[in-house]
């Protein structure tokens, strides 16, 4: 047993997620990610059960841990009550906190999630906000969303929202004192520290890759991690 294994095993989700895997492969059979990517949740559990720190470190630097969609289908079907999907959450936390996430194409994407959903939580009090869901970044949202964004105040008013106004209601402006509480919760519980580490390691990696990483979304490194699909991730048809 090594330091890395001990670190993972200290997380309650690890305790809940890994009991006694019999390697039946049911989790892989039911897994939507395993159908699409080169991915087998059973193999994740096998590495963890080995308690071999070298193998665990390799896993934390790999593309593999980023393929799961956290749908938790594996939890329903495991005949031994394991939760590979929960183990993934523990592995991803460690990969970010140790800076290993920047060693994989899929892992590097965490900066894009931090700079969008992560920062929107602190800025608006919501995980998503209309002004930030840009049609050019979301062509799949289609012309109706494009039209909505163009007329957002009137559309939200028509549909009964309290958009950017005070008081209760849909997409109301979250009062500043409540946003400050969220900020203090992030400071107290480790989210602010994780954000700092994601930024720090991403800057190091951007420099290593010879790319510029400015603030916000309109810079070379952000665009690269948001769109790059240079490695072979998916299964053969």
């Amino acid at each position, binding site marked *: 047993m090594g330091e890395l294994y001990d670190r993972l095993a200290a997380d309650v989700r690890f305790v809940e997620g890994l009991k006694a895997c019999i390697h039946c492969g049911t989790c892989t059979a039911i897994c939507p990610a395993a159908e699409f990517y080169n991915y087998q949740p059973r193999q994740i559990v096998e590495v963890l059960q080995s308690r071999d720190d070298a193998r665990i470190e390799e896993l934390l630097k790999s593309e593999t841990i980023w393929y799961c*969609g956290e749908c*938790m289908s594996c939890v329903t079907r495991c005949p031994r009550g394991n939760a590979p999907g929960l183990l993934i959450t523990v592995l991803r936390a460690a990969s970010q906190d140790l800076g290993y996430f920047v060693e994989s194409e899929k892992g590097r994407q965490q900066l894009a999630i931090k700079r969008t959903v992560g920062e929107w939580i602190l800025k608006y009090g919501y995980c998503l906000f209309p002004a930030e869901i840009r049609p050019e970044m979301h062509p799949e949202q289609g012309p109706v969303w494009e039209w909505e964004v163009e007329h957002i105040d009137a559309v939200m008013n028509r549909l009964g929202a309290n958009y950017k106004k005070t008081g209760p209601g849909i997409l109301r402006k979250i009062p500043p004192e409540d946003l400050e509480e969220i900020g203090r919760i992030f400071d*107290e519980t480790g989210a602010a520290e994780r954000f700092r580490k994601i930024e720090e390691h991403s800057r190091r990696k951007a420099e290593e890759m010879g790319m510029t990483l400015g603030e916000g979304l309109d810079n070379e490194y952000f665009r690269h991690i948001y769109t790059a699909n240079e490695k072979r991730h998916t299964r053969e048809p």
Partner: protein
Amino acid sequence: MKIEGKRNIWNDYQKEIAADRFFYVRSCVRQNFFPGSEKTFLRIMQELLQRDVYENAAHTTCSGIGYHSDVVPFETSMTMVARQFALMTESGYENFTTSCITSFGLYTEILETWRHFPEVESRVRGHLLRATGRTFNKPANLSHTSDVIFRFRKEIAAAGKFRLVNRHTGMPLHGVEHIGCHYARMFPGKGIGGAEYPYVLVGMIEDWGGEVIDYPERRHCCGFGFRQYLIQANRGYSLACSKKKFDSMAPYKPDFILANCPGCSMFLDRWQYALSEMEGITYGENGSGIPVLTYEELAGIILGYDPWDLGLQVHQVPVEPLLDKIGLPYDPGSKFLDQEGKPMGQPKEPTHLKFYNHE
């Protein structure tokens, strides 16, 4: 045949749903993409059923999308949820209902974690107190808003002006039900009917006159996958999952899809558009898509509400074919008007997917 055993198993998947005095929290996805559904939930509960549903303006996201895309630590999300519970406690309520399935799954996961690890709950209480000065009671009853509509489905049917019946043939309409993964996959006992045979949406469709389609990929995920959708490079995963479902359900000719998860409702709607643009595929009749509805939207149709008050104009897959089958009257010309009746222009027409622009 002895059916006692089967009855006992079914008992494990019954769920107590509060009847009144709800502390209501909203969904990030629905507020952005289907605001009319949340408006309709309150209209049904407060105006039709005369129930006490309270919203505290200080509540925020639970951070669930951030948690499941792994940028927000579990410790943080637990404390964010504890803050929501504190607002409920301060407001004098104990029945907590949430509009979001990701949130419902997260609240359930957190309450179960605290049950198994009381020291974690104590630690989170400390975090919350230091960060906000707040304390909290845990909810006496936790439900998703689809549970609440399920509980009142018979009252809605009784007050309804329409049924899920094709007015041209007199036959029941056929619906696909899609349950959000985080409703009951991790904790089957917390959902009506569990994870394998969830009844929460089936009960609505059947009591409102329709029939439910059973199809091979009925339980497959819609493909949201959090980071698999949020990042453009990963969206092939999300699209492939939804396509697998559409291909599987299409031979059964569904009249509509009913979903209880904010993300699923949006993706099953939007990916039909994307597939039509990418591959020229349309899954409904005569170039239409299969309309995708939230449970409040379907309830609103049964109750005869104006479809544009329900927010059906912001669906990318038009809902008119379903409205025409049911016979719900609507004014095509007011589809894209604002609150004062002024035109707001209209969305561009997709290349293949049939669109109802009403100009």
